[in-house]
């Protein structure tokens, strides 16, 4: 037995408020499980952004297309790491794939994940880059040539019919991909939402709230990456593209905010037996992370900022740098807000006792698997993977190109 762990629990004892069941002092799903839905949210959101280009034909955000696909892949590869790392027996994780119990929401993870990775994301990325990889391989020598030829699966047909087939396949994959992205993150929400023992989680709205917050975080992150990476790689940020993407972000935040508001009003109005302890928790334990970070800084401030650029469009339109700065601040705040959302769902759901009589506290560790350092590493890892991916499948040409206008009305008509 780990004496340090027991010591930590002992330290928590005086911080308990009211009565909790004696087994409830340990918060079982810690920081790693906060990181997990945050990461899968980015995956789903980034993919939805990519599908705007392919399915809804929004030409303005074309520069973000490949970047968002690669971002989705980079984050998807890291998602299961957080899950496996938090297990009591990480070495037995394969049991969930070999002998899944069909009645368990969690057991479906392997299938949902594999479907999304193999059948959607990898296929789409492959079809998008196939002809490019063939072209790159022809001009290259050595290792890169080998990598590109292997990744292209030694296909060499760049004829008209092959390219037409690529386009057709892409369309189908994206159309299948949208519900799959919804499935991926809605499913993560269902893992929490289906726990009837926990009134903070148990809600039909949770999968939908997860979904929209996922779209928010994914779009915001891709915009942020685009605004940072483009100047670094010698390109010029296309404001036409960013404006459009921020538009979609704006609507997604409004929907997300409304859904959370509906959930809140519903709980308060119904005022069931757990309402006392939940409101005590929100006012004491989650005040900073829920009221301040999630709602105020993560939603209302960015909404106001983006609204300002719309209301005073004439002034902002002339000053691109000002607009860039406002957008930049907004997307960063949104990232923190969504991370706080995940925190409030996961940690908040375990801070109150199921006896509805008391609250416990989460003491975050610094080192160790469950610690802050490891989680920061997990959050940084997708960026590293993304850097590698952009070396292999450079999206620069597309990112640096100025998008053609129109497009928007194509989707409408």
């Amino acid at each position, binding site marked *: 037995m780990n004496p340090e762990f027991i010591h930590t629990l002992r330290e928590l004892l005086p911080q308990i408020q009211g009565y909790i069941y004696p087994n409830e002092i340990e918060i079982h799903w810690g920081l790693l499980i906060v990181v997990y839905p945050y990461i899968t949210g980015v995956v789903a959101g980034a993919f939805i952004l990519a599908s705007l280009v392919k399915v809804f034909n929004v030409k303005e955000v074309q520069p973000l297309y490949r970047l968002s696909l690669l971002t989705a892949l980079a984050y998807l590869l890291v998602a299961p790491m957080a899950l496996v790392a938090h*297990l009591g027996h990480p070495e037995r994780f394969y049991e969930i794939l070999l002998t899944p119990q069909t009645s368990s929401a969690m057991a479906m993870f392997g299938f949902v994940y594999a479907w999304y990775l193999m059948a959607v994301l990898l296929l789409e990325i492959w079809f998008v880059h196939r002809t490019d990889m063939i072209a790159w391989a022809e001009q290259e020598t050595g290792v890169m040539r080998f990598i590109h030829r292997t990744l292209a699966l030694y296909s060499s047909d760049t004829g008209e019919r092959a390219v037409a087939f690529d386009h057709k396949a892409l369309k189908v994959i994206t159309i299948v991909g949208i519900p799959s992205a919804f499935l991926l993150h809605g499913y993560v929400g269902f893992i929490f939402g289906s726990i009837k023992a926990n009134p903070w989680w148990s809600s039909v709205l949770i999968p939908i709230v997860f979904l929209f917050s996922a779209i928010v975080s994914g779009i915001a992150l891709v915009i942020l990456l685009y605004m940072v990476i483009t100047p670094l790689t010698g390109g010029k940020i296309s404001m036409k593209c960013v404006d459009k993407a921020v538009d979609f972000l704006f609507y997604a935040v409004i929907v997300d905010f409304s859904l959370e508001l509906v959930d809140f009003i519903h709980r308060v109005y119904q005022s069931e037996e757990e309402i006392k302890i939940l409101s005590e928790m929100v006012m004491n334990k989650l005040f900073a992370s829920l009221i301040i970070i999630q709602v105020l800084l993560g939603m209302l401030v960015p909404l106001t900022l983006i609204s300002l650029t719309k209301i005073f469009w004439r002034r902002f339109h002339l000053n691109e740098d000002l607009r860039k700065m406002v957008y930049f601040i907004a997307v960063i705040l949104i990232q923190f807000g969504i991370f706080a959302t995940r925190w409030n769902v996961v940690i908040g*759901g375990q801070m109150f006792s199921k006896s509805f009589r008391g609250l416990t506290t989460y003491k975050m560790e610094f080192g160790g698997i469950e610690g802050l350092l490891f989680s920061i590493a997990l959050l940084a890892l997708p960026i590293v993977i993304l850097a590698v991916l952009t070396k292999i499948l450079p999206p620069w040409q597309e990112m640096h190109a100025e998008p053609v206008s129109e497009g928007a009305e194509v989707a409408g008509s």
Partner: protein
Amino acid sequence: MNGRRTFLRGFVSVLLSGGAIGGILKILPAKADAREAPPKGQKWYGFGVSVDKCIGCARCMEACKNENNVPREPFFFRTWVERYITRKNGVTTVKAIGPNEEPSPEAASDKSILRSFFVPKLCNQCASPACVQVCPVGATFQTKDGVVLVNEKTCIGCRYCIQACPYGARYLHPVTRTADKCTFCYHRISHGLLPACVEVCPTQTRIFGDLNAAASPMSRFLRMNKIHVLKPGLNTEPKVYYASLDGEVR
């Protein structure tokens, strides 16, 4: 066109057939994994608690920790006893008692106390266990005689069952790193012995037995008392039955 229509018709009829729908529906509700009470003659274990008889001596907690090698630290319990004190102003305070408990305030001398009592808690061995439903690898399961157990060799330690239990009956064992909880002392009852906590209870607060048996302390307990279970609204169908349970107890 005709081919497509034929295909659709076939597809829909397969969907509507009992087999497909039954197959899909079977995986959904928790009931599918729960065994209905077996016919007479087969054992179906239950547990009784007479709240009025409990004196809060905590011997059951001690016996349980000894019998089942539960870690001694006060964060891991297969069974525990709660002390409720409801004051005249309507405020109820609850505490889990320990072996070195300071004496409870006397209702006779402390005039602000309206009523006070002890409630033993343990795994409810639900007939429709939420923990069994959510386990991703089937490591926690229900035996034929209605006891929910954990296979520590296959449990991956994801703690989903701990989250799903409405009663706080489960914990992660700090040594095995797997979920752990009350087993009704399955190693004892399968040899015809009583669970350790029942054995040591000096006031016969705790009753154990086969719910299907015609004449047993358990069936007598169910016959002679007004019975309630914990959180019946969650439809977990607990098999730990309480007599004289106060409405404050959750």
